[in-house]
């Protein structure tokens, strides 16, 4: 058994299969709760538990995939460039909304964390909760956060924004398509954007742009925030 568990590509193969299973499940049942990342995590943890493979050797085996994250994040510049051109006319309003949302999100998390008396490391791990995992995990790592907690918080936030988004639009009386896109992208990053895409092409495009801008802005502001916690 231990010999089989030491096969180098096992963690990667396991992760890909678990992720694809999650994707199939979501396509079939169409529930945002069945996020493929979430399903894959549950399946992988189940596998580790049943076989006794350690989390650290699983993560070590995933290094080959993990190093692709930085170049993949760099690639977000390409869709951002394309949306910048399409959305030129509405750009100032979009950027202002994203900035207001990203800044207030950071302040809310920091203030809540201090009021409730969270350990600083926990608050720091939760700060990037509304931005795309690609930048959020890098920020968490850089500021001494727990990347596992950060990833879980980001995925939860995205699912929450995508399920509650339509209700939030009514609550805040967001009728404008551009404003809705800004809200989905700024609060719910990539997962919220998939919901925004269902609401319409313009909403989706604004949301995709907003999530990258929110990520960039948070990357600049978050380290300053960490000093205050």
């Amino acid at each position, binding site marked *: 058994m231990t010999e089989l568990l030491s096969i180098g590509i096992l963690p990667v193969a396991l*992760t890909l299969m678990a*992720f694809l299973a999650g994707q199939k499940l979501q396509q079939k049942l169409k529930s945002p709760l069945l996020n493929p990342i979430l399903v894959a995590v549950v399946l992988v943890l189940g596998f*580790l538990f049943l076989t006794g493979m350690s*989390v650290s050797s699983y993560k070590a085996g*995933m290094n080959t995939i*993990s190093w692709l*994250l*930085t170049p993949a994040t*760099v*690639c977000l*510049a*390409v869709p*951002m*460039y*394309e949306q910048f051109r399409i959305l030129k*006319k*509405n750009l100032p*309003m979009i950027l*202002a*909304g*994203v900035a207001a*949302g*990203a800044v207030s*999100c950071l302040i*809310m998390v920091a203030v*809540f964390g201090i009021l*409730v008396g*969270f350990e600083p490391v*926990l608050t720091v791990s*939760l700060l990037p909760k509304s931005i795309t*995992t*690609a*930048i959020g995990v*890098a*920020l968490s790592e850089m500021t001494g956060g*727990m990347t*596992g907690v950060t*990833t*879980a*918080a980001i*995925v939860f*936030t995205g699912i*929450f924004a995508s399920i*509650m988004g339509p209700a939030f*639009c009514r*609550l*805040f009386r*967001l009728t*404008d398509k*551009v*404003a*809705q896109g*800004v*809200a*989905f992208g700024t*609060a*719910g990053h*990539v997962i919220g954007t998939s919901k925004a895409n269902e609401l319409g092409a313009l909403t989706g495009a604004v949301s995709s742009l907003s999530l990258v801008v929110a990520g*960039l802005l948070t990357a*600049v502001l978050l380290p300053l925030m960490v000093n205050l916690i």
Partner: protein
Amino acid sequence: MKYLSQFCIILAFTLVGEALQRLLPLPIPASVWGLALLFIALCLGIVKPEQVKDASAFLISIMPVMFVSPAVGIVENWDLISSRLLPIFLLLAASTCLTFGISGRVTQWLMQKGGRHD
């Protein structure tokens, strides 16, 4: 060969990003430097979208798979968060709701004020 040369350009920007993260005294991740520089290069026409488009679409599409491994790492921090699940849930839910409202309201207000619309 198309993918190889595109991937090479992306890696070049990644490398410059990694170098900037190490050389500059700013707490900004390599990926953010690379993203910003590639965006500027696209705006200035130094890099044409066609030179990076396919490889970047592929990398972006497989990105979610890369988050499974860090998310699995949450079991290593379970002791610290298991006793605080309710406040963490409240924090995430409330801040997500308000971030949604604030960002959307600001944009909508500006759109109505400016009267510019598509």
